[in-house]
């Protein structure tokens, strides 16, 4: 054995093998038009009764057409599988399906499929359908007509955005088995159907020629999962992928200035909030099992002072690196039209002097001069919970507690993972924390979370609640019920605006900033990217994903995959250098042996 010689030879063999494989791969391109989207989250399940991640919703948006569609610009209800719909009383709606609808496997898509999905989802309480179908009954009166009846006045109708599943596939799956159904059947009514899912790697969808809008211009969409977001950005720059979802904030400014790449801050209602624990004894709970908030937090004036002490502009600039916009009232929907415009009088503008004044007037004095105000003779120290799972949680906490200190309020910190924090919050064992929400299109679910009935009172399950601020306001609840049955859209919106203004003024829930989806796409291969909602929304992973059926390939657009010419030159060069080295070594070696 001659170690060094062996080393060089092995290195060369490896290099040659790599060169060969690279060459072989470079030739495997063909004429299919393939859109490749990079993302950082795999599907959890392609099964609509099980999955719940954003990535799975994107899959269903492409695989399943819905009775009514949502306008790309403003989510307005539009004809989808149903070409028309009408109602006399707002409770019973008649939908007429388009003519000649088919599933991707050629089976006719009829009113039977629609009625079957709605009724079965209601009976079996399918995870992603329940909220929409709980009060509905559907009946197929002929192949193209579905009559849907609601038990209550429901302002969400005629919107019917549940994913209609193929009856001829699902009727063979029993209620016990449906949770374990892998849902890889690929029977689609939307623009694409699922062909392959390699867990943790990618999923691949082929265009569906039977899609009711007609076959789309893309043959295949591939969603490629990156576990390393920086590698995803690298792949976008090198042209390995055409678009990327969940771009890391640190790379965003760079992509914004990269030629041939458009970076998108997609707003669809997501926001970060600071919650103040304001539970004041209603509805009653077992005080031996629950913790209570700091008593000062039950004083509206104290909460208002905190609201005046939060500089949202600074938080966006310094914590979120400018990615996001300062918060106002809570956004209950992906559509910003639902957010009320606050009057100057209602708005808690950032003003530390004013905050101090409010606290002085309310009698929270600092009598011992240590810089911290007292409540009933004791320094006011708030318990601030930090989320270990969010990179922004600590910087938020540093700024917020800094401002609190300036108005004479001290804080202590505890750190929790999200699972723990849900329970800690349910037990009321905190005063402040920052978390986030992403609402649906209809404001109802988000609004429902802040009713009295959603306050945590169940000592056997501290996670069984939504209202983490603990405020119970009967007037809010009354307005909630009202909007939930108001069939006039303008009236309903006006009620919602009033509710949200009232909620804002209660100062238990301070919206800090919007949390946009950061995305980017290349401009050299496809055109026709659609933002939903218009101008501010994301281009991918939006509510009904209109980009995919709008995109068209650009003729002669950039190359995909394979090797670039510079790469081939580099490989050849490396090979040549390697060979030269071996030659030199062998020659030298021989002369040494001769000398010996």
């Amino acid at each position: 054995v001659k170690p060094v010689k062996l080393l060089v030879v092995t290195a060369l063999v490896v290099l040659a093998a790599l060169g060969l494989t690279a060459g072989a791969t470079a030739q495997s391109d063909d004429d299919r038009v393939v859109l490749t989207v990079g993302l950082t989250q795999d599907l959890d399940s392609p099964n609509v009764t099980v999955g719940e991640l954003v990535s799975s919703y994107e899959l269903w948006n492409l695989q399943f057409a819905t009775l009514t569609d949502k306008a790309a610009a403003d989510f307005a209800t539009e004809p989808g599988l149903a070409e028309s719909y009408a109602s006399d009383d707002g409770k019973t709606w008649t939908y007429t399906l388009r003519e000649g609808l088919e599933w991707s496997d050629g089976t006719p898509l009829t009113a039977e499929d629609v009625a079957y999905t709605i009724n079965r989802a209601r009976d079996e309480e399918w995870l992603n359908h329940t909220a929409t179908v709980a009060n509905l009954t559907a009946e197929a009166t002929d192949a193209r007509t579905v009559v849907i009846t609601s038990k209550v006045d429901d302002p969400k109708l005629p919107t019917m955005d549940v994913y209609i599943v193929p009856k001829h596939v699902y009727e063979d799956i029993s209620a016990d088995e449906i949770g374990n159904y892998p849902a890889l059947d690929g029977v689609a009514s939307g623009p694409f159907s699922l062909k392959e899912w390699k867990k943790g790697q990618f999923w691949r969808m082929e265009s569906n020629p039977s899609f009711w809008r007609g076959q789309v211009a893309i043959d295949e969409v591939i969603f490629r999962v990156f576990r390393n977001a920086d590698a995803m950005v690298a792949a976008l720059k090198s042209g390995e992928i055409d678009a990327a979802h969940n771009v890391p904030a640190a790379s965003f400014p760079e992509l914004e200035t990269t030629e041939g790449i458009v970076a998108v801050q997609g707003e669809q209602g997501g926001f970060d909030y600071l919650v103040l624990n304001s539970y004041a004894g209603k509805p009653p709970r077992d005080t031996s099992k629950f913790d209570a908030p700091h008593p000062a937090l039950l004083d509206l004036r104290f909460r208002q002072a905190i609201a005046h002490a939060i500089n949202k502009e600074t938080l966006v600039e310094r914590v979120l690196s400018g990615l996001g916009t300062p918060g106002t009232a809570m956004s209950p929907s992906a559509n910003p039209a639902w957010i009320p415009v606050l009057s100057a009088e209602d708005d808690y503008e950032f003003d530390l002097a004013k905050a101090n004044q409010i606290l002085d007037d309310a009698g929270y004095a600092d009598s011992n001069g240590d810089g911290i105000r007292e409540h009933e003779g004791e320094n006011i120290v708030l318990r601030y919970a930090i989320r270990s799972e969010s990179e922004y949680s600590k910087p938020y906490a540093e700024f917020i507690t800094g401002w609190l200190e300036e108005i004479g309020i001290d804080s202590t910190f505890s750190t929790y993972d999200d699972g723990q924090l849900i329970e800690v919050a349910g037990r009321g064992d905190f005063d402040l924390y920052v978390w986030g929400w992403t609402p649906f299109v209809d404001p109802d679910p988000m609004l429902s979370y802040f009713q009295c009935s959603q306050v945590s009172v169940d000592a056997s399950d501290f996670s069984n609640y939504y209202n983490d601020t603990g405020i119970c306001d009967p007037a809010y609840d009354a307005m909630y019920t009202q909007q939930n049955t108001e069939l006039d859209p303008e009236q309903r919106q006006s009620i919602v605006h009033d509710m949200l203004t009232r909620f804002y003024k209660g100062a238990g829930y301070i919206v800090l900033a919007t949390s946009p989806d950061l995305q980017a796409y290349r401009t050299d291969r496809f055109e026709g990217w659609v933002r939903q909602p218009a101008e501010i929304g994301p281009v991918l992973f939006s509510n009904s994903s209109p980009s995919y059926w709008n995109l068209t390939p650009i003729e002669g657009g950039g190359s995909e995959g394979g090797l670039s010419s510079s790469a081939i030159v580099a490989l050849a060069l490396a090979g040549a250098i390697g060979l030269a080295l071996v030659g030199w070594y062998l020659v030298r070696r021989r002369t040494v042996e001769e000398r010996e």
Partner: protein
Amino acid sequence: LSVRFAAGKILGALATLAFVLVFNFFLFRVVESNPVATLYRGRNLTDAQRDELTRQFGLEGSKLEQFWRYLEQTLQLNLGRSYATNQPVVDEIWAAAPQTVALVGVATVLSMVFGILMGISAGWRRGTARDRLLTSGSMTTWSTPDFWLGMILLTFFAVRLGLFPTGGIEDPASNATGLERRLDQLWHMALPCLTLALAYVGEFALVMRSSILDVMREDYLTLARAKGLRDSQVRDRHAVRNALLPSTALIAINFGFVLSGAIAVETVFSWPGLGLLTYESLRGPDLPMLQGLFLVFSAAVIVFNLIAELAYPFLDPRVRHK
């Protein structure tokens, strides 16, 4: 080699495994967490759905009951269900293992071969320019964090030169099968494998170098030289054979770590193996998955250690006679 010796080693390994089994349970139950609440935040779950999920995750009953159930299930090779995917942990581990064995196995073999050769070469010519170059070079790659090394290689070879893909195990757009598909996978494996090989090679090189230095003082080398053997013969027939012994133990232990050894690199290159599964589960945290992975990783190390201990007497007669 006595039966007693072997039985003792095997019993020792089994005892360690039993300890790991018990420790593993309590380690992961220290963290109080309710996966049902975490997974389904923002969902309208009925109480019945909630109870059913709690039952599926095996979280009902007292800690002791859970422990017995855990022991019973583990002995039947049932490691529970993942909080994140609701699939059996065993299936997920089984599906991810081949990719890790391929990647880390190849990298370990490469770094072993290169490292040992480098160590011999450096040790035999101690103090020369070659020794300094090989030793400082392998020290550098060994002490470099592997995720950082991976990112550097990725940025240079995948983005700047466009030579290799940025991650994944195969080209999702390709319909290739058979050999062509294998070649594509090899192409995808090149960068992560190179990263790992660079990271591991220093360990082998340094251990081999120091054992060469140890044997160089031995009398039998002086004797070999006195017999008039050429320098390369002295090295290959007498020095290397003896110096390889310490490396054998190292090799065995390294194979034990093949399963668990590549968390950072698999994550950097989105390589769908056990390392990536570990990283994903840590982020959850997906406790049943972590529990299963730790058990498998520990078992692998224990088994390869046992193999090394049982093989040693065959390689080194001195151990046999003691």
